[in-house]
């Protein structure tokens, strides 16, 4: 460790705890690093790196799915959807918590990114659960944790990028994600079940048959949205990113037909979306700068190399990789971490005789956990800004789910067939 690196870490922590917005902390830390290590030639590269953080078509899914969520809310679509799910299974104790998990798994089969899903679901589920009597912290934490399934259940941005980096079959990766995705869902359901014993989760009245029919009739046009999205993506009418734009247009039409959405609300809806989006994308911008400096100084490689010199046993290697990724996941986010680390780790797979598809699922779950861990976790930031919950309270409330996710990660790491059985079937 050099003097420059140590003082930069101190600067980073100091800036963070005196309450400077995290996006600016990343930018200021990057700048200080260049001064502390006398790397001033890199200064001229800073604006370009900030710009190129946004130069990515996939990121458009963030504002568009946020807008779709906002429009569905204003248009009374989401309340009807959740009302319908509630009439069906809400009368169980903690029913709405289960509804949230199931809804997340369903949505995961449409969306490819945990961030997009967290943005949409926290907009939709948290106010609804709060209305039912759940605490806002618990509701946001559950919603955020469940969004982990988004990149695990196909389609998945992370799998596509991992496959491109390593040459692993993207089709296999998609299929390999299904069982771990379901395991995660079951894990969360068990957590709710255990919490249900101790906590006094609300339940709603059992719906009558008439109510079920009535709410089904109300929700029918709204159900068109996921149907059109799934059908549109599967039949090649549009890409997942474009599907978000289509969802927005359909949400507007249905919202107007429900007579709950009015043209005069649109500017407010759009402005909300912009501010919520920019808090995330502005962070991506500065994280891209931060990631560039980390890459330039080869910090992830050095960490990886020193950890990997420890053991030649594949099981120990996988454990070390998990620890490394969980640690790096606290400061680096998803795609950036993937792009930096996979090229370093992938060549080692041959040495340790580890299946690249199996490894891809492990890496993806790890990096998605990174979205939930402070200080840098875009999932945390999204949900905290959308649901207006303090990051600290969110971190505390998410602990049981985080631990569950790590347990399932360990199961998947050491039980290879849970991942490779399904893709092996159709060969």
């Amino acid at each position, binding site marked *: 460790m050099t003097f420059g690196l140590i003082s930069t870490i101190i600067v980073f922590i100091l800036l963070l705890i005196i309450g400077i917005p*995290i996006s600016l902390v990343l930018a200021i830390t990057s700048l200080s690093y260049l001064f502390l290590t006398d790397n001033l030639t890199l200064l001229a590269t*800073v604006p370009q790196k900030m710009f190129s953080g946004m130069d990515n078509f996939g990121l*458009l899914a963030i504002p568009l799915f946020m807008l779709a969520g906002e429009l569905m809310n204003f248009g009374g679509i989401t309340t009807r959807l959740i009302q319908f799910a509630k009439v069906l299974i809400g009368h169980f104790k903690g029913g709405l918590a289960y509804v949230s998990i199931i809804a997340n798994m369903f949505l995961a089969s449409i969306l490819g990114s945990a961030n997009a899903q967290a943005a949409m679901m926290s907009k939709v589920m948290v106010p609804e659960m709060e209305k039912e009597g759940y605490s806002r912290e618990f509701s946001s934490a559950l919603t955020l944790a469940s969004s982990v399934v988004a990149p695990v259940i196909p389609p998945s941005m992370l799998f596509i990028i991992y496959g491109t980096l390593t040459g692993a079959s993207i089709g296999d990766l998609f299929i390999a994600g299904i069982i771990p995705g379901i395991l995660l869902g079951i894990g969360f359901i068990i957590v709710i079940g255990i919490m249900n014993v101790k906590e006094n989760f609300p339940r709603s009245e059992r719906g009558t048959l008439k109510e079920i029919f009535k709410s089904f009739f109300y929700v029918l046009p709204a159900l068109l949205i996921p149907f059109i999205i799934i059908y549109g993506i599967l039949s090649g009418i549009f890409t997942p990113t*474009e599907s978000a734009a289509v969802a927005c247009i359909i949400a507007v039409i249905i919202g107007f037909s429900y007579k709950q959405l009015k043209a005069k609300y649109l500017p407010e809806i759009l402005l909300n979306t912009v501010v919520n989006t920019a808090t995330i*994308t502005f962070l991506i911008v500065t994280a891209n700068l931060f990631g560039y400096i980390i890459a330039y100084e080869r910090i992830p490689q050095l960490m990886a190399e020193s950890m990997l010199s420890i053991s030649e046993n594949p099981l120990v290697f996988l454990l070390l990789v998990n620890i490394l990724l969980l640690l790096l996941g606290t400061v680096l986010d998803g795609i950036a971490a993937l792009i930096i680390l996979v090229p370093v780790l992938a060549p080692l797979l041959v040495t340790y005789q580890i299946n690249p598809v199996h490894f891809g699922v492990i890496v993806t779950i790890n990096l998605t956990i990174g979205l939930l861990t402070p200080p840098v976790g875009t999932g945390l930031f999204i949900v905290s800004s959308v649901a207006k919950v303090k990051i600290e309270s969110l971190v505390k409330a998410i602990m049981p789910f985080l631990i569950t996710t790590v347990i399932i990660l360990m199961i998947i790491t050491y039980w290879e067939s849970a991942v490779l059985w399904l893709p092996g079937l159709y060969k």
Partner: protein
Amino acid sequence: MKTLSNWVERIEKNVSILLMAAITLVLFIAVVYRYFLSAPLFWANEATIFMMTWLTFLGGSLGLKYKSQASITFLVDRFSVKGKRILLIITHIIILAALALLLYLSYEWVLTLSPQKSSSMRIPMWIPYLSVPVGLTFAFIHLLDYMVDLIKKTPKRSDVL
């Protein structure tokens, strides 16, 4: 300062609302043109990405004005109102100094660009690049305005994060 900040806010709001609506419509129309009319809009992806960069830097500046950017507040919350004011003055001096440096760097970057055209639309790259210095300038104006308020008077409780 106040009027300038509010004037900038109005521009940011109107432009970013238009950009968000335009992104949605362009992508939707792109789907219609490609799938139903078999005449893809080759410029749609690039145009929406460029609009998104403008949206990010204008909206990011708005987010700083509205104090909606995520931060860690467990320590700050423990301070008295007076202590918080002092801490806020310190953090804003740090932020403004960093922004001033970023502003200098980004204006120099845009002004010394070598010629480059975008890959699909063939428009000059300074058009999307300009979002960086403009957004940072607006953010600087908002934070300077807030800093002046901080020094002039104790902010209301609701103003303090």
